[in-house]
């Protein structure tokens, strides 16, 4: 169905990060917020994306923000880096989704929800680290990779899934010995994203705990957050609810804390 060769070809085809994005991210790394905003302003697609992202209800701004300098000013260095990485991920997403019933609007909605809720979690955990904050942006890469690798095998996957409750991650791992999160890590490497981001995302798969306590804890929160979002009707209808297996035991110890933060009652 899918071979290691298919995966190598896919990774080879991933374009490098555009120059303006690289420059924006470099400046943000050095805390040059206004200079970064100026570079970002010169990229019309990035400008439009950032404007749409932060004006989504989940970000909770009362008035519309439209200037990049204003957006970066509100988000701060860490938030601006997170938003820019979110945009970088969209460059990888397909024009037309076939495996999942997604489009750019729904995909951006997922990115916005994940980022905004992850920021609430980090605030609760009292973690201030811009690379940790950007980790969430790599998570949807697993969805994009699943779409790219399985979109021509929809009927085969359907037949297989009718016989056994197998998720895309398990199918890929059993066929090629690498999973969606390993491929996401390679994408991060190609885009020179900080190593910590990949480490957290690997743990967020729910099947690869880390010996590093902080990374393990963050991976758990992201895993639970992912399934909180993938339980929303919009994403269930897109076919995302079972794209990877939810590891309930892995997140058991943070579950009640999570419900409290999200204001849910059992």
């Amino acid at each position, binding site marked *: *169905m*899918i*071979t290691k060769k298919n995966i190598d070809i896919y990774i080879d085809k991933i374009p490098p990060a555009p120059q303006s994005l690289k420059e924006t991210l470099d400046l943000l790394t050095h805390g040059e917020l206004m200079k970064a905003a100026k570079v970002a302003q010169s990229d019309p697609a990035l400008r439009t994306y950032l404007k749409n992202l932060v004006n989504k209800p989940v970000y909770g701004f009362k008035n519309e923000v439209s200037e990049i300098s204003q957006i970066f000013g509100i988000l701060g260095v860490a938030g601006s880096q997170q938003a820019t990485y979110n945009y970088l991920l969209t460059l990888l997403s397909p024009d037309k989704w076939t495996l999942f019933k997604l489009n750019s609007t729904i995909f951006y909605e997922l990115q916005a929800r994940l980022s905004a809720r992850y920021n609430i979690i980090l605030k609760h955990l009292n973690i201030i680290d811009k690379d940790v904050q950007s980790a969430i942006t790599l998570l949807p890469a697993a969805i994009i990779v699943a779409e790219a690798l399985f979109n021509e*095998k929809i*009927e*085969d996957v359907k*037949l*297989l*899934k*009718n*016989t*056994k*409750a*197998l998720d895309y991650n*398990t*199918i890929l791992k*059993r*066929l090629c010995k690498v999973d969606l999160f390993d491929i996401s890590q390679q994408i991060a490497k190609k885009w020179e994203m900080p190593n910590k981001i990949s480490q957290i995302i690997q743990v967020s798969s729910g099947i690869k705990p880390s010996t590093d306590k902080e990374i393990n804890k963050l991976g758990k929160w992201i895993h*639970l957050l992912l*399934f*909180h979002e*993938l*339980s*929303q*009707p919009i994403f*269930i*209808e897109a076919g995302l*609810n*079972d794209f990877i*297996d*939810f590891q*309930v035991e892995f*997140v058991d110890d943070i*579950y009640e804390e999570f*419900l409290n933060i999200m204001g*849910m009652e*059992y």
Partner: protein
Amino acid sequence: MRAILKDGIAVFYPQGFLDGNSAKSLLSIEDIKATENLEAEMILVSLKRVIFFNKNGLEIFVKMLSKVRKANQAIVGFCDYDTKKFNSIIKFFEKELLFSLFNSYEAASLFASSFKDENKTVLIYCEDKSQRSIMAIELHNKGHNPIITQTKEEFEEKRKNDKAYDIIIENTHIGSMDGGNISARVTGNAIIYTLSTYLDADVTNNFNISYHNNSLKVGFRLFIFESYNVVSMNIHAVNFFSRLANSAAEYNATICFVGMQYEKTNIKFKETLEDSGIIFFDKLDDILEDKELLAELGASSVGNAKDKRSLNKALVSQLPKFIDATAETIKMMTNAEAKKESASIYTIKIQNTKDKIASSIGFYGDIDGMVVLIFPKNIAKKACELLIGEETNDEELIMDSLAEFVNIIGGKMKSLLADNDINIKITLPRTYSEVSELLKVADNRKGVQVDLTFDDDHFSFFLTR
């Protein structure tokens, strides 16, 4: 979301958070229609990967499943949960608990007629006395050995010795178990049908005659009707089974009844059925545990079918579709490319039967016939790895997965033919650990044989009627 069917039990696996909004999206009308078509005897929602649920969420599932229950008389409910979740469900549905709850899938499967291994020792605890009795009766009727504990203390004490029990049942509630259809399961190479309650003219509607006839064509020769739960039988049912026995005789097949009681059934009916060739036994184990008797009755050696129909144009014209479905599925599961070596129309010929296993699957509908697949063990093992998740030499596990694998091939055939507006249904696949067993079914049958290679392993495909 689609249910996954195994051994007559269809299970939905939702993940994450289950509330009124998500449940509506998880289970659509189309999903329910597809589930009805599965003709499962039990339909469950696994809560294994659900971390949060509320009453609204469960209620939507219950309402949707009730539709299938009405259509198919299937047992419906939830499974795979812990004590906390069980208590929540009980609290939510205190006075309206009409569905079943099973603490695990394994526990649920014990109550299904399709359960393969009987005689399990089951430790049971349930606070509700009547529920305890229902569970004990159901398990006993299904051939298990239930051990009931009266108090929580006794249960906790006994469960310490967990090796003494095959399965422990707690936090379980049995809803209505009165399935109306006659369910079928395969044990070894016998098909076992489970009958219950009153057998009258309705038996004709409840029995899937197409499935039965195609099982005969595929090569099954022993059909056992488990009748422990039959209260009585009238003349219409007797006539039906007599006709069934006559048609089975044409294939040298045997029909047996086990566990039939005659308190409310005229004993003369038994004589009539015996005259038709039906054999009666007290217990299922009287047959299944007696290898010689099994062989004699036809479960291990199979006589050739009377019905050796010739290939027709309609079937042969679809040959490429059958080959594509097989080759594509093997490629999907193993990443190995198929190369066609030869094709011939004659009787099946297998040069070397060593280290090969086989399977056959029947189909019926717009066209009918049987596909026989002879695999080198290598290919079968490799193909099953994707389903099992690891390399294994466990013969039973491989044969079990081979049936699942051939079922996927059958599904692919069905979908490729449907693209050409040809609709078929497929039977359960039959597997053969020795090719010689298969040859007893397929020998002398005319068909198209296509020999293929996958990474230098020889594989044979045979299409016949």
